């Protein structure tokens, strides 16, 4: 007779007043993403990898498509994973992980694996998840495999030397979108709204966004995604010190400021209610508080900053927060100076080939 597929349920951490940023007594001790990798100082994706795998625990199978977190993590004979891990081609994050999920479903049913069904997840960069592999992830979400599909988003192809990806923000300098006389803003296009696309396009899936600035939120959303029976998608903002040019100690701070400046709405989509739940940050900042910390924006002119502020203000409206008049006023370029002239601004990024 066919065996029953028993699934795991992971406990959620308490979220006092929404989020407690500094006190994490109930954090799991296990570290399936151990020391021994070669990520940069201040690497946002490495922080995300660690929280996600702490949240998932040891009874887990992980896939990792090509990207910086493949190259920096998995040195032959010295990988940092104490859980089974497999590299996949960059376009195969969704499809390979589908195969693992399908394999475990069948093996448990047919008596070839005792169970319980492992936590199955993939962590793909934005180049993989929003660009070359978006079809394979969409296919996997559509088919509703019981797995968690994570996009760690450092807003560029970092591994290959900081080239633009569909999630690189407007005016973000990359080596494929340098600024110059003819194109002073560098990147001219606004970013693809990947998580929204996944939620709207696959309404039966659990979808959420988060950042490395909110570890409890990241852990809980990872666990909710894994607990959800079916496919889940988690889009996590993960700063890249090498690509963005900021002080290495500021990774977590950036993860909060991007939310507080309205540039990264943090939300959760509940497939049962078919509704979005938005996080309302306690602080609202002008976008310059965020942009000036990063060299990739150092070339921005007043009109570019104003356009970014206008985009942030639309995000505030989208998530149901009032836009203070001070922030509305900042949609006017006359209210801005060149970003390089802002106080505390980072040096302009002139790196070629990164």
């Amino acid at each position, binding site marked *: 007779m066919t065996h029953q597929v028993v699934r795991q349920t992971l406990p959620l951490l308490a979220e006092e007043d929404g989020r407690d940023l500094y006190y994490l007594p109930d954090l799991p001790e296990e570290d399936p993403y151990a020391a021994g990798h070669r990520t940069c100082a201040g690497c946002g994706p490495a922080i995300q990898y660690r929280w996600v795998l702490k949240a998932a625990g040891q009874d887990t199978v992980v896939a990792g498509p090509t990207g910086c977190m493949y190259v920096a993590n*998995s040195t032959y004979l010295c990988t940092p994973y104490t859980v*089974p891990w497999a*590299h996949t*081609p960059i376009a195969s994050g969704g499809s390979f992980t589908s*195969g*693992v999920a399908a394999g475990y479903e*069948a093996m448990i049913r047919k008596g*070839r694996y005792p169970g319980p069904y492992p936590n199955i997840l993939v962590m793909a960069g934005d180049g993989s998840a929003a660009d070359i592999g978006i079809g394979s992830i969409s296919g996997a979400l559509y088919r509703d495999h019981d797995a968690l599909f994570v996009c760690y988003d450092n807003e560029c192809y970092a591994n290959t030397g900081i080239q633009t990806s569909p999630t690189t923000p407007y005016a973000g300098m990359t080596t494929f979108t340098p600024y110059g006389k003819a194109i002073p803003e560098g990147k001219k296009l606004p970013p693809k709204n990947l998580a929204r696309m996944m939620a709207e396009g696959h309404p039966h899936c659990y979808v959420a966004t988060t950042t490395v600035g909110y570890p409890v939120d990241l852990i809980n959303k990872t666990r909710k995604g894994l607990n959800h029976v079916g496919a889940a998608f988690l889009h996590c903002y993960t700063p890249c010190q090498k690509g963005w040019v900021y002080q290495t100690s500021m990774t977590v701070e950036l993860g909060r400021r991007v939310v507080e400046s309205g540039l990264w709405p943090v939300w959760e989509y509940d497939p049962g209610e078919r509704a979005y739940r938005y996080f309302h940050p306690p602080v609202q900042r002008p976008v310059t508080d965020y942009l000036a910390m990063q060299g990739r924006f150092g070339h921005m002119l007043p009109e570019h900053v104003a356009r970014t502020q206008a985009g942030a203000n639309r995000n505030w409206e989208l998530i149901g927060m009032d836009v203070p008049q001070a922030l509305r006023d900042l949609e006017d370029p006359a209210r801005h100076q060149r970003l390089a002239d802002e106080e505390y601004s980072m040096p302009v990024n002139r790196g070629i080939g990164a």
Partner: protein
Amino acid sequence: MTSVPVDAGPPRLQRAIRTPEGETFLRGLAGTRVRQNGCAAAAYAALYANVDVITAYPIRPYTAIMMNLAQFVADGILDAEYLHADGEHSQFSAAFGAGSCGARAYTGSSGVGVTYGYEMYSIISGARIPIQMAIADRTLDPPGDFGSEHTDALCTRDMGWLMGWAATPQEVFDKSLLAYAIGEDPRVLLPQMVVQDGYFVSHIAGEVEMPAAAQVDEFLPPYQLPFPLDPRRPVSHGPQIHPEQGPPLQLERARAMEDAIPVIREKTDEFARVFGRRYPHFVESYRLEDADIALVISGGHAVTCRAAVNRMRAQGIKIGMARLLWVRPFPGDDLREALAGVRAVGVVETNLGLGGASYGGILSLDVTTALYHLDGPRPLVTSFMAGLGGETVPMAEFDWMAGKLGQAVERGRVEKAAHWVGFED
């Protein structure tokens, strides 16, 4: 730190159970002879092999294999995850993922579908994941052409997959089981392509003997990947290497291909013992004992070729045929043995190799290289471009080829490296 067991061997996986409906269905089939085409034969073999995961994407003509399997799953005869991929690249990736965690995975394609997923071939064989892929040949574009041509599968010949053509539905059925047994053998661990000519084999019915499930279970042990993605014994698959770590891994894969040769012989003999049908290990030698000239061929056109050989023999022409049952690993020893003493060899290509040393097809490159190492006099070799785009190769064309080979023997040299059959006098 959590302690992780690293010294335990891989957990042994049990034989996959069949559904009660599947048991009943297979009991009813055992010992019967069923008329079915090559696509159905491939699907029945996957059913008997009790595959765990099937990944499908539609393209003619192989689609019918997946249609058959979809019905088996819908009827509860086969308990398998049937995954509708979003394209061939994803399709092969998903089969790769399933195979990597220890599930027996089955996939397939035709024509440009085979080439769309090209990235995956080296990755899957390099990871040593022995999934099976059924190919029903189709011409590559342009222009859009449904017809059979071996170019699609042969494009992938150097990617580390075991590859062989079946000439009849019965052989498709048998070869699918054989290929799993060979590829999953721990001495080999390589993925397999079981190839059949589109339409000529995939869509023309022949008689296929249905075995008892117990025979298949005896011949094909449960799939035991030595290093599955299993939380009970964590392993890392496919990490980044330094340049100096590359050559040893490539050598391992090359050796696996060589090591497959004795395993193919052993499993082919074992197959004959269990099922009572004996195939040559690598090369079907047909009327070659005293032949002056010979045609080397692969796949379904061999059926016509045999008849042509018989008719020419009746006319006193000393011709024979060597049919390749496996193209990867290429059977150099067996081909040399079969063709020793022959004075001129024509390779019937049914594939397109543009700009190569043969100025015609792909197959003659391997055949010529193999024959170069023959002890004693070497036969002349030429390439016959025939059966392209899905055209049949009629008896008259084999007669024409024999004529060209006869002339080559008389002159002591071939007229040209490749003849386009039907375009020349």
